[in-house]
């Protein structure tokens, strides 16, 4: 029920602008339905006229007056009504198609826009796959529902109302007969759908487990082959596979059976209507022509009457998915935005110093990561952060760029709290090089000028040269125009890292945070990256988050963090002399003869 309310709010927000198209679609669908239900009566009337004509012709007394004119007129009306149906339905579908495409387009961009405004926290707490699924399956489900369910739903309701009116207009008795099997049909539908939901759920769980097994085994095939585990692997697979066979058969039966059951019910209903209609025709006061017409008309109605019921039950699953989809997208929409100060102070450089002052911070309430960290950095200094995984090194970086804000204490630049600066200007002043150098689709040049898309080629070249990557780029057949895309991983981790350094150099930030890459880079490439980093650090205030100590031997100050506290602080020599944590770490990482 809560889902329904959330979904309602969501759709209201996005569909509100389309009030008029909706109004006209509803009107047109009404017209179309009216045409569809009225038209068959003209067919009945035509048959009745034809019967009268034949009878008049058969009797010599009336033969002269027998005429087909009324018959022809009736047929003309039949065609006209269907023409009205087709044209109004066409315009309504046309309008709704536009509404669907445009509203889901707005939803998609809205979701992306929201993503750009949200706090980084959300991305850290949700898996990429989960967030991406909102663009793919959730928006897809919403689109499908709007695209198909919307018009089908409106049509079904209109049809139902129209048919009921027409039936009761023509013959109350026959109308009741036509409706007689409805409760049974609804009961069957409800029961089957309930069973299907359970069975399909089980089926999905088992398919998920099977796919998980296949994925794990085949991606670990090297281990299977080198250990000779092929037969074990097949045996494990068979267990999952047979389980899927069992539950999926049930799932397919229960979810597939509703449609033939309801079609069958429609067939049965038609039979009952024919049966009852003919008894009524024989026993009643009706002329043969009128009786025949009544039967023909009601056979038609009986078929049309079941159509909306079948449609509505088949839409049920689709609507369910659209409600869940809307809830999940809406959940993103209701996330808090990053806090941006109104009239934030301008900043484009550092005059004196950056100060981290007694900072406490926690990602999750009650689980504090930093317990009162204080670091002073004078303009132009290089400070290195060292410590084991989970010590809080990366957290400091998150705070300097305001990806997160401190719980207590403050971080200041030249005495002004970071939170008082204009956020965009602050981030332009603070540059980061991340561990995982995410590149974007486009050319290499586009990626280097990512932070300033208007930068000319001369600046791109200069940045690449400083980052020691120019020669490599030039050696590629397309040079700076080489396409970067995530499918073809032609660049090594080291090369990507160097490109990301060039990207940061181009924006010329005054304060630099370098989160050092740890994996997939051999020590020789690492030395190359090191040289590039040294180039960037020149003349800038910088923080280096180091995993390999070699990088930071020249730092003005090394800060050792453990469990969110500073345990040692000083230059390389000073720390070695302390024989503490740093000295031990150093001993472990370096090779000594």
């Amino acid at each position, binding site marked *: 029920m809560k889902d329904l309310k959330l979904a309602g709010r969501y759709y209201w927000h996005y569909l509100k602008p389309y009030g008029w198209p909706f109004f006209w679609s509803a009107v047109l669908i009404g017209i179309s339905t009216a045409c569809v239900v009225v038209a068959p009566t003209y067919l009945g009337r035509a048959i009745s006229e034809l019967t009268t004509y034949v009878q008049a012709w058969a009797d010599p007394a009336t033969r002269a007056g027998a005429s087909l004119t009324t018959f022809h007129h009736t047929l003309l009306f039949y065609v006209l009504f269907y023409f009205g149906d087709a044209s109004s339905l066409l315009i309504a579908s046309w309008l709704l198609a536009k509404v669907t495409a445009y509203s889901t387009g707005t939803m998609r961009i809205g979701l992306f826009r929201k993503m750009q405004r949200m706090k*980084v926290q959300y991305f850290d707490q949700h898996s990429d796959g989960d967030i991406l699924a909102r663009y793919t399956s959730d928006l897809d489900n919403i689109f499908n529902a709007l695209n198909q369910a919307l018009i089908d739903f409106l049509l079904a309701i209109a049809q139902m109302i129209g048919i009921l009116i027409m039936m009761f207009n023509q013959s109350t008795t026959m109308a009741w007969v036509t409706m007689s099997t409805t409760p049974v049909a609804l009961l069957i539908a409800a029961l089957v759908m309930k069973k299907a939901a359970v069975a399909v759920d089980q089926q999905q769980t088992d398919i998920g487990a099977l796919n998980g097994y296949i994925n794990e085994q085949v991606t670990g095939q090297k281990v299977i082959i080198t250990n000779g585990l092929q037969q074990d692997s097949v045996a494990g697979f068979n267990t999952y596979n047979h389980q899927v066979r069992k539950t999926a058969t049930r799932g397919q039966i229960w979810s597939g059976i509703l449609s033939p059951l309801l079609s069958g019910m429609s067939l049965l209903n038609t039979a009952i209507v024919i049966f009852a209609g003919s008894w009524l025709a024989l026993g009643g006061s009706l002329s043969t022509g009128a009786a025949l017409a009544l039967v023909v008309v009601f056979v038609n109605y009986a078929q049309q009457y079941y159509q909306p019921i079948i449609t509505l039950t088949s839409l049920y699953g689709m609507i369910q998915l659209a409600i869940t989809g809307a809830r999940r997208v809406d959940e993103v929409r209701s996330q808090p935005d990053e806090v941006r100060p109104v009239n934030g102070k301008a900043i484009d450089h550092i005059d004196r110093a950056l100060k981290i002052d007694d900072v406490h911070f926690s990602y999750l309430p009650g689980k504090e990561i930093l317990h009162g960290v204080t670091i002073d950095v004078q303009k132009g200094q290089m400070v290195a952060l060292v410590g084991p995984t989970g010590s809080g090194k990366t957290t400091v970086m998150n705070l300097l*760029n305001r990806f997160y804000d401190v719980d207590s204490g403050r971080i200041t630049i030249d005495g002004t709290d970071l939170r008082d600066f204009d956020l965009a200007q602050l981030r332009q002043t603070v540059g980061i090089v991340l561990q995982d150098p995410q590149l974007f689709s486009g050319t290499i040049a586009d990626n280097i000028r990512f*932070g300033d898309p208007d930068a000319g080629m001369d600046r791109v070249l200069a940045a690449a040269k400083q980052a020691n990557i120019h020669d490599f780029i030039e050696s590629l057949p397309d040079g700076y125009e080489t396409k970067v895309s995530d499918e073809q991983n032609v660049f090594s981790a080291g090369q990507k890292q160097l490109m990301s350094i060039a*990207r940061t150099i181009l924006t010329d930030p005054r304060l630099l945070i370098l989160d050092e890459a740890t994996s997939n880079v051999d020590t020789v490439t690492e030395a190359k990256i090191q040289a590039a980093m040294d180039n960037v650090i020149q003349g800038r205030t910088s923080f280096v988050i180091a995993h390999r100590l070699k990088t930071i031997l020249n730092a003005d100050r090394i800060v050792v963090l453990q469990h969110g506290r500073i345990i040692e602080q000083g230059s390389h020599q000073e720390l070695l002399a302390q024989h503490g944590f740093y000295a031990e770490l150093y001993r472990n990482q370096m*090779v000594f003869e």
Partner: protein
Amino acid sequence: MKVLLPYLKKYRKDALIATLAVLVLVFATLWQPRLLQTVMTAIMAKDRAAVWQNGIWLIVLAVIGIAGGVVNTVYSARLALGVATDLRADIYRHVQTFAYADIETFSASNLVVRMTNDVQQIQGAVMAAFQQVTRIPLLFFGALALALTTMPQQWWVILAMLVIIVLVAVVAFRQMSSLFGQTQQLIENVNTVARENLMGIRVVKSFVQEDNQIKTFAKPSDELRDVTTRIGELFAVLMPAFFLTANVAIAGSVYLVGTQVLAHPAYIAAVSSFTSYLGQILFAVINGSFIMTFASRAFISMGRVREVFDHQPSMHFAQGPAKPVRGDITFDHVTFTYPGDETPTLKDVSFTVPAGQMLGIVGATGSGKTTLAQLIARLFDPDSGRVLIGGVDVRDLPEQTLRDAVAFVLQRSTLFSGTIAQNLRQVQKEATAASMHRAAEIAQAAEFIERLPETYDAPVEERSANFSGGQKQRLAITRGVIADPEILILDDATSALDAKSEKLVQEALDRDLKHTTTVVIAEKISSIIRADAILVLDGGRVVGEGTHQELVRENAIYQEIYQTQKAKEGRLPA
């Protein structure tokens, strides 16, 4: 299609019943208008008995129709799942005969997709085929035949309707499939931008590129919106056009009945059934064209499955019982090129390691270290030259002999979900608590395993997510040593261990697995500093061989690597 035949044959009973049930269903659907016609004639003749009798028949027919539909669904489902399950099992079994090179040819993720999505696609198609596809041609031709026998003079009305509908359908669906293709591409573009921004959200924010990225995203998103609008408009025209055509045809035929009614008064009673048949023809054509669109996807899947079956394992092993071999390794002028590559990854590599010794391998990323190790385990065969274990070419060893002799521990140490003990028993079937403890002791894993509440029965989650990097590597080493292999390959398998644990592992290997030849590949010189011999690889060639001391003195490349790792000011005060 040929891929499916043997499976369909196996489940021919289900297939037969499903098909018969469809026949019954189609018969019921088609016969109802006929019976209606009889009833109408009876009404005109005021024949109560005939009305009663035919009325009963109508209801019986409807009930038979329901039964037919239900039976058809049940047996179609059984058939589809039977076929899918067997097909998937056969693919899986076939893939398990593949050599590693074959897996790489397809790529693991690609094979997974073929076993999951593609099989699912085929399953859906089989189910639909036996539910719908047999029904649609039957309905179509049945309705056509019945319509023709009802009013034979009006064949050309039916023909005109069909020509118009088919023409409209062909034109519309052709255009639609091109639009659907475009949609697919645009959806992919939209997702790429979204995914990049998700993963690079910190980059976007720190470079203040939010607005530019929104513009980048809006481009494919707006194009997608426009293409979906066009598809929607096409559909909007299509359906009303179909129905209008059918109804004009009905009106036309009724008009013709008017002109012929004096000669054929029975036509009046036939109008109703004739119009029903026209409706069913229309239904068959519309559904048929939809199914064609979907069927094309299933055919693509079948092609992809067939590719897997057609691919024969590229490596064969000598037959014969498993027998022990000695642990010495010899590379004799080995050159190796990865399938699809132009330049060889290993060039003329020769060396020998006596049994029980430790060999270290160093070199830059891409110098061929891992490739060399993979040839020992015969994941690939060399282009030329020989790899010998215990003096025997690995190509002449039975598979089991080779697997028993060589244990390969990878950097990304894959454990399978289950328990620790299950993972260990995969390598040594009868592993006891004592032998597991011994192996874990060697790998320095006993300490943390035995602190877990369930010790060796502790669960291992998917991707071993419940263990840290160092723990995963120690578990993998435990698995590597439990069966006392003749040769143990550690491919950067201690990268996440600190220096102290790494040293302990190596000491334990020396002490407890004396006869085992150990091959250690490492980035860190500290990992191989104690090796009996070290190979230095550069660009696929052996450019140095010797002990650490020798190489530091003589080998320029080794010196360069060493330089990047050497302590700044020599030995520390202990």
